[in-house]
């Protein structure tokens, strides 16, 4: 027992507590497996439907994560790429009845191509100008959606009929009327793949190159990194993510139009920015946490306090949360949790060294973990949070 505790304590070498496999990675993986149970746990199909929405959001937000958090480019065209994926899938479905196995790569590639086409002029500028150019490009795409009636059906949008459209992948059916759970597992699978994808990017030389560009573009250039190409690449990857999510969105909603609340409104990009910032832009799982909070947060509040959060009010709350989180917790929930955990470990250990008993030490650690800054005053410095 004592050796086990000793090993447990050794596994925190102070600075790199989060790298510990047993105490951190395993619980996180278990938590990540939890959504698999959603269809059995959730009592209503409405909740399962929300879980589908959350999974789709996770995919889109992960894509934006690559561009925004890794590469440092604030794109406001991201939801429009999502809409582009949905539109291209819808048109292919309406005109050619393609199976979903073909639709997904097709829509993904279309959105990636759209991202490249937007990026080619937009990456000539940087910073805010880039954000605004992507916004304008998104508006142009929306105008096409609205006004190129012959191609896009104009403001009526595209409605797909799931009773005639191909909704099966081999023997598995996943139309959202009768086989919502199957559809949920399909989106969830894509969400997992997207998480694994950005995790792989983050830990590859490509991800480091993206981050180098974010941190010091000029220095990166002087070391031989082709900044323009890598920015386009990051944008194309995130466009692909958004395009894939677009197909799933289309199957889920069965309709896409260029309206105010659809993915084709560029301002909805703020939603995904919000997810990343609430979740934590320095963490791989930030967008996942953010998407879950944004989708299920209002649901939880409504079930406790009785439907006080209309969608409009939820937006007000989210908007202020976005502003507040930027000002007070720039690394979001994930960053706060990590700091809290590291503080807990460090304070508990120091308290043990001063001869207090285990329960007392852990209690003190728990207290400080909610307020890492207070622990800093006592000389306990967890690994400094990386300013985004």
């Amino acid at each position, binding site marked *: 027992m004592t050796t086990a505790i000793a090993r447990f304590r050794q596994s925190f070498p102070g600075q*790199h507590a989060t790298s510990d496999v047993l105490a951190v990675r395993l619980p996180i993986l278990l938590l990540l497996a939890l959504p698999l149970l959603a269809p059995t746990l959730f009592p209503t199909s409405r909740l399962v439907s929300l879980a589908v929405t959350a999974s789709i959001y996770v995919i889109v937000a992960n894509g934006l994560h690559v561009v925004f958090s890794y590469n440092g480019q604030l794109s406001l065209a991201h939801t429009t790429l999502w809409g582009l994926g949905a539109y291209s899938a819808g048109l292919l479905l309406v005109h050619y009845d393609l199976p979903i196995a073909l639709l997904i790569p097709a829509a993904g590639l279309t959105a990636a191509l759209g991202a490249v086409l937007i990026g080619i002029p937009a990456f000539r500028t940087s910073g805010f100008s880039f954000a605004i150019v992507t916004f304008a490009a998104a508006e142009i795409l929306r105008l096409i959606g609205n006004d190129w009636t012959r191609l896009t059906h104009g403001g009526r949008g595209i409605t797909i009929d799931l009773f005639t459209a191909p909704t099966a992948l081999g023997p598995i059916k996943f139309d959202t009327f009768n086989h919502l759970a199957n559809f949920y597992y399909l989106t969830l699978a894509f969400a997992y793949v997207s998480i694994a994808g950005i995790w792989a990017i983050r830990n590859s030389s490509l991800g480091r190159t993206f*981050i*180098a560009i974010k*941190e010091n573009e000029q*220095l990166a250039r*002087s*070391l*031989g*990194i082709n900044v323009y190409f890598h920015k386009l690449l990051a944008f194309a990857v995130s466009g692909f993510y958004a395009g894939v999510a677009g197909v799933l969105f289309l199957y889920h909603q069965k309709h896409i139009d260029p309206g105010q609340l659809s993915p084709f409104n560029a301002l909805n990009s703020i939603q995904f920015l919000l997810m990343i910032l609430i979740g934590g832009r320095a963490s791989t799982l930030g967008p996942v946490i953010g998407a879950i909070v944004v989708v299920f947060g209002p649901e939880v509040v409504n079930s406790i306090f009785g439907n006080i959060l209309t969608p409009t009010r939820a937006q007000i709350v989210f908007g202020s949360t976005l502003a507040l989180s930027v000002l007070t917790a720039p690394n979001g929930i994930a960053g706060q949790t990590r700091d809290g955990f590291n503080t807990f470990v460090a304070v508990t250990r120091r308290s043990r060294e001063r001869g207090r008993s285990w329960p007392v030490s852990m209690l003190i650690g728990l207290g400080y973990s909610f307020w890492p800054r207070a622990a800093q005053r006592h000389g306990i410095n967890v690994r*400094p949070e990386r300013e985004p």
Partner: protein
Amino acid sequence: MPSFLSVRRLSKHYSGVHALQGIDLEIEEGKVLGLVGPNGSGKTTLFNCLTGFTRATAGHVVWCGDDITFLAPDQIARKGVVRTFQQKMVFPQSTVRENVEMAWQARRADGSHHILGGCDDVMRFLGLSPVEGTLAADIPFGFARKLGLGLALAARPRLLLLDEPAAGLNLDETRELGSLIGRISGELGMTVCVIEHDMELIMSISERIVVLDAGQKIAEGQPDQIANDPNVIAVYLGEKFAKRRAAQ
């Protein structure tokens, strides 16, 4: 055989300001070249033109037979000409090791074996290994300067351009830097070109010195020649320096 790097009649005009006026310069392989001159004499502009950050108004830069005047900075870096910066010299929110890794992988191995086998070698060479896990924003200034140098080394250049590497360093650190530059030239076999205001340092490390003033080359030669050149003394070094050097 084409010369290593040669600058021919290079000029840069900023709407009326003549930052560089027809500079001619040869950098010889394997040597350390010092580039000095008063503030605003066009040293950094020359670096910017060499590395593609500024587009020259006229003239050419020829690197091993290729005209690189109008290439992009990253293309020039991949050809083997890498510079450092006076400010913003590191990736601040990454650890020292990550910094070096970023620079290392920026350039694909071109098949040629390099004396530095990997990031560890770079950090060991510069004495950065003790701080490898620290964020670059948190390391002391002297280490940050070394890390800036390390990033350039990790990009495996053949020609290394150092822009005031000793600015802000104290005496000991400057001395250490001097020996480091000597080792870069000697052990790693890189050609080095240094912009520096610290004349003691530049005199001790350079094999040849070029003096710029108001965008023109006013002198070129061995350190001793330069120190005694009346022109250079008048524009840059001052009488005091010449006397003190003569006394030594």
